[in-house]
């Protein structure tokens, strides 16, 4: 049997439709399940809205981080950044624990503070979109 005859025999409209429907069903199910799972997942470390004070071209950013876990102690590394409209960094840095040693007990919160000093006036006026804070490393404490 020639190759084309073989492909015609097996690649019938019915088989095509069957495969198509299987993929569509799989995709729909997969997308829905993964989406719901992701949406309902609570992050272990919850990061609050950045509080910003700008003096000249220096921005000081304070954020609150809360340990949502029941039994793990974390010593997180927290990053801060000023980003433009495209999500690209204008300046970034690391925020340090405000008054604690950075150990976050289960269900506890702590403040972190950092400064951004590399911003220019033009970036502040024309490019800066927002200040963001993020967890660089969750870092469970020893």
């Amino acid at each position, binding site marked *: 049997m020639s190759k084309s005859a073989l492909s015609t025999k097996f690649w019938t409209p019915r088989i*095509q*439709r069957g495969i*198509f429907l299987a*993929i569509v069903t799989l995709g729909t199910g997969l997308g*829905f399940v993964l*989406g*719901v799972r*992701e949406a309902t997942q609570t992050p272990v470390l919850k990061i609050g809205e950045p509080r910003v004070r700008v003096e000249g071209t220096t921005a000081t950013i304070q954020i609150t981080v809360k340990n949502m876990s029941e039994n793990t102690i974390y010593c997180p590394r927290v990053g801060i950044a000023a980003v433009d409209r495209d*999500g690209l960094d204008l300046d970034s840095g690391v925020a340090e624990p405000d008054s604690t040693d950075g150990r976050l007990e289960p269900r506890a919160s702590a403040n972190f503070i950092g400064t951004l000093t590399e911003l220019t006036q033009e970036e502040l006026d024309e490019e800066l979109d927002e200040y963001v804070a993020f967890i660089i490393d969750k870092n469970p404490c020893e």
Partner: protein
Amino acid sequence: MTATEQVSRSILSPTLTPRPDFHITRKLVGVPKWPLALLTMIYTINVSDQYVLPAMFPLLKREFGLSDTGLGVLAGSYLISVTLFTVPFGVVADRFNRTRIIAWGTTAWGMTMIFTGAANGFAMLLIGRMVLGMWDPCDNPTSQSLLADYYPVNQRSKVMGIYQVGQLAGFVLLPIAGIMSQAWGWRATFYFFALPAFVVAALAWRLQEPIRGNQDRKHQRLAEITDEQRVAEATPQVAVEGFAAYKGLFRIKSYMAMLISASAGSLFFGGIGVWAPTFLIRYHDLSIAAATSSIAVVAVGGLIGALVSGNLADYLTQHKHPSARITVAGFARVLSVPFFLIAFSVPQISLVLLSLAIAAMFLVAGIPPTNAARVDVLHPHLRGRGSSLDAVCQGLASAFAPILFGILSDATNLRTTFLILSPLAAVAGIMLLTLGLASYSKDARAVRDQVRREHFASLGFADGGAHEEIGVAEPDDEPTLSEAVKAWVPTDGAMLDVKSLDFSYGPIQVLFGVDMAIPQGGCHALVGRNGVGKTTLLSNIGGLLDAQGGQIFYRGQDLTGIPPDQRTKLGITLMAAGRSTFPSLSVRDNLMFGSYPFTGSHELAAQRLEEILEIFAPLKGRLDQRAGTLSGGEQQMVALGRALVAGPDLLLIDELSLGLAPTITSQLLDVLDQVLEFGTTILLVEQSIGVALAVADTVFFMDRGVVEPLGPADNLDAAALTRRLIEGRV
């Protein structure tokens, strides 16, 4: 009593029916609207990934520790992938089943979105991004080719305008993606964005694959195709295979004009899109958030432009401006320039935004007519490749635009750059108005001729096969129409003029290029066997069905797209076959339904009801009885009475005598005589030759979807006509 006296005395006269000016709306006619809605939705979903990823950049960056270079590579890889795959997908769109390409492509797009959502590092993200870029071009060129074959040629601009909304709607998804990613994370956003893709893909699978060039073939008027000399005149054949196809594309002057125009437009708009927020911040002291959201006015302007220009171009095309698509697109682009210049020059921010919105409206207004015109001048087997080449040129222009604007801005300043480059939009318009306009009609006609020749060849006709192809009988050796009939058939000033009407129920064609002209006044009978298309023709005239090809003129007014309720207001009333009453309503309510065209004139409605009861005396004592409980003859009286309450100028009656006793039929025919004296013109569909000849002044004969005028009823031999009816000859 003379007819004039009767007219002046009868309250049922059509001349006494109020016909206030009303807004004539035209709806999209032809095949069902859902393919257009679906393809527009797919367009929106397909472009959404362009906006979703940038919204995710900050989150991706933090999660994977990506540098800005890494993000740039992700964005760039997508563009490279789109550019690389656009041309091959154009070839695929021209060779394979397009609905399947879209269904498979959209499914693959959805799966790739899920894959991207599951990425565990930069490599997976990069692969996901590149594969997404691969599927992106499987939609747009294919959809444009499909739309050209789904919808009538004379509505192409309107269809392209609605389709264009799909792209603009994609912008709306950007803030939605932002909100979703903030609430549920970037992975969930990718997963949820994939879901609608599977739904629309499954629906796309169910779309019917139209025959390529189907609408172009239908668009050819009978008058054109009988001109054998012109049809046979050899316009150069366009190659549709291999590299010769691309060479052929570049030889189509109007296509090249559109390609250059679209690229120039994209070069300008691409730069404006990126730099406009900076312009507003720098020169008008807006905050970044305000400047970014202000750009939304541009999208609104564009949306209006896309929808209006498509309608306008189609309207003008149908009203003796065959190159209107090019003209509208060209002028729209040129007209955008002064508004851009105002926007970039004046200090008042409100005036800036208003001017920007108007300028964007004009600039975007050029897109749908251009897309329609491009399809017009491309052979149906080249439309995928033609559209894909256009997409590549526009994509490259858009990618280069921000760089060009940046370089010029560094050399001068941003305002000067905007002012210097604004004439690019004028260049785009002038290119259309010169080279495009000079060659468009010729190129479009050449395509239609080639489509027709190919179709004849496929049917085995060397030439002149047009008659069989559209279902019109070949002329016999002896002329079909006598001189008397020729003198009778109105050529100018017909009250109702049906031209080349084609109608299909799905794949089954019922009307084949029907031509029929009816003068004002008198009764005109359309006779024919069961199932030859009489009711279908009447329903098309009444607006209950939408023809796929041809036109119907009523008092010189093209009825295309005018819905049935408005046709009633124009004076056309259809009395459907069978017992067309509302059986659960009273006789009074049934009759009063006829006063719809002049709702509000209660006195006139009451007077007409009274007059109807004088004519149909048996109904007098049954006004409160349910219509469904009346005898067949009485129900037919109610149906005819209802039609007469409307005061029709043209009364369409379908099978008046169907299922009625001869005495009842005779009574109804007497009523028709009265109606004629009111000044109403009647088109009566009948199977009974006796009934037709008894009341009609002229007779048309219909068989197998074709109508032939037979002439004055007095000249016809009832026996010969009956024999012909049985034999079914046109």
